[in-house]
């Protein structure tokens, strides 16, 4: 299991314990975490699971591939260097301690 902390729009923090192999987006949607929509269910067509990486735990995030990069250009909130789509981040034990900030909007 991987602890991932979300900083929500109101500034509060919520930590989810995500099973290995599940995407961060999927876990957030299934836990009704406000601010992560994930409409397309993780098939890289909607860009509504945008997050800002605040802090990385011990491990490393997977690199941004071409498709994610193209979709990040279309996110509703500002794209920043720390922008990622949370459907592309799969939970691994090494990622425990990851901290993500939810953007102001997804649409």
């Amino acid at each position, binding site marked *: 299991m991987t602890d991932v902390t979300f900083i929500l729009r109101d500034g509060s923090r919520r930590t989810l314990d995500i099973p290995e192999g599940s995407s961060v987006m999927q876990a957030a*949607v299934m836990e009704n975490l406000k601010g992560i*929509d*994930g*409409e397309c*269910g*993780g098939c890289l*067509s*909607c860009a509504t699971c945008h997050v800002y990486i605040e802090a990385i735990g011990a491990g490393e995030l997977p690199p941004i591939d071409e498709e994610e990069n193209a979709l990040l250009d279309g996110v509703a909130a500002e794209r920043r260097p720390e922008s990622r789509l949370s459907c592309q981040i799969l939970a691994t034990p090494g990622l425990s301690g990851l901290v993500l900030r939810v953007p102001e909007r997804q*649409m």
Partner: protein
Amino acid sequence: MISQEQNDTYTRVGRGTPCGELLRRYWQPVALVDELDGPRPVRPVRLLGENFVLFRDEQGRFGMLDRDCPHRGADLAYGRLEAGGLRCPFHGWLFDATGKCLETPAEPVGSKLCDRIRQGSYPVAVRSGIVFAYIGKGTPPAFPDLDCFVAPETHTFAFKGLWECNWLQSLEVGMDPAHASFLHRFFEDEDPEASYGKQFRSTSIDSDLPITKVLREYDRPQISVASVPHGLRLTSLRPIDETQTHVRVTNIVFPQAFVIPMSPTVTITQWHVPVDDHNNYWFTLFTSFTDPLDKKTMREQRLATYPAPDYKPLRNRSNNWGYNPAEQQAQTYLGMGFDINVHDQWACESQGPIQDRTREHLGQSDKAITAYRRLLSAEIEKVAAGETPLMHLDAAQAATLRGPVSFDGVDRAGDVERYWRDGDARRRAAAPWGAEVEA
């Protein structure tokens, strides 16, 4: 994709549920006036998981009461229609259309029991051949001045049918312009002249293209969704060639209806009304901008496959909706006949009693569905906070609404919004019943 909790919030509609409380803030279609025209105008009604009895008393007044007799709970839908009300056959208690107890004949002479009994009763209103009821708190909203309510009786026709699945997946098919290119695809076009009263059989305005051909050959619509006072407006563009664009404008009238074109002269307004969490009735109002509707033909066409009294379609899950692989190979995309209502019914019922939205993957062509769910969430929250939701209108607000525009045509000038607005305005100017233009 949404969580189970979110899916429950949208789909569970019993009394006290968040969405159930929202939907109770609106007039809900409960019966066709036709159903209360016979020799015994009494019909059981199940709405949002609650049971009622709808009747017309000897003076023609409509009443909708709780279905269980307040004496000992027997079923008033089997009541005797007499003596100015509906009488329970168990012990003869009699109720008028407002729920007032008129008689408790087994009680001793001089008994005051009757004065202290009141059966739950609900406001009822008739519009364009549909009986609407209000079972929510407070005052019912006003009916908006939409075409389907403003047009004279001669120019509207109402029908209904049962779908055995949740209301939301049924409504969502009405905000999905892409599916029509696939689910409703016919491999050959019928003669539009021979298709009176059927959906998706006409030609688009300003063209000689049968809509079946447009849908079949141009299957990647560019969909845009706009927030409007009545809910959402969807515009679907199908570029045909360098100079022609097929334009289809449809609407969601919040919370539960969509408005779409049936032909150049007739629109469809269709509500999806929860019977309970696992069943819903569609109520359709056809509205003509030109000639009076041939109601007899339209009713007979539909009763042949949705027989009274329950309007449950002959094609349903129990007979695989009449699925025919040979037809699917040669004639239609789905293989379930040529009535597009059956196609939509299969799509929705095959999703299960309540679609498991934790397993869905929405694409860009589903953008109206996501826009609608956002709106639904926001309005559910408003009601939970004690605020007035969208389209719970007072009389002044209701009088400002028009239309809405639903349009199917081919633009050649390269300005689609101007095209459908002008085309709609021309159609309204020519209508015999003074249809006004939506702002």
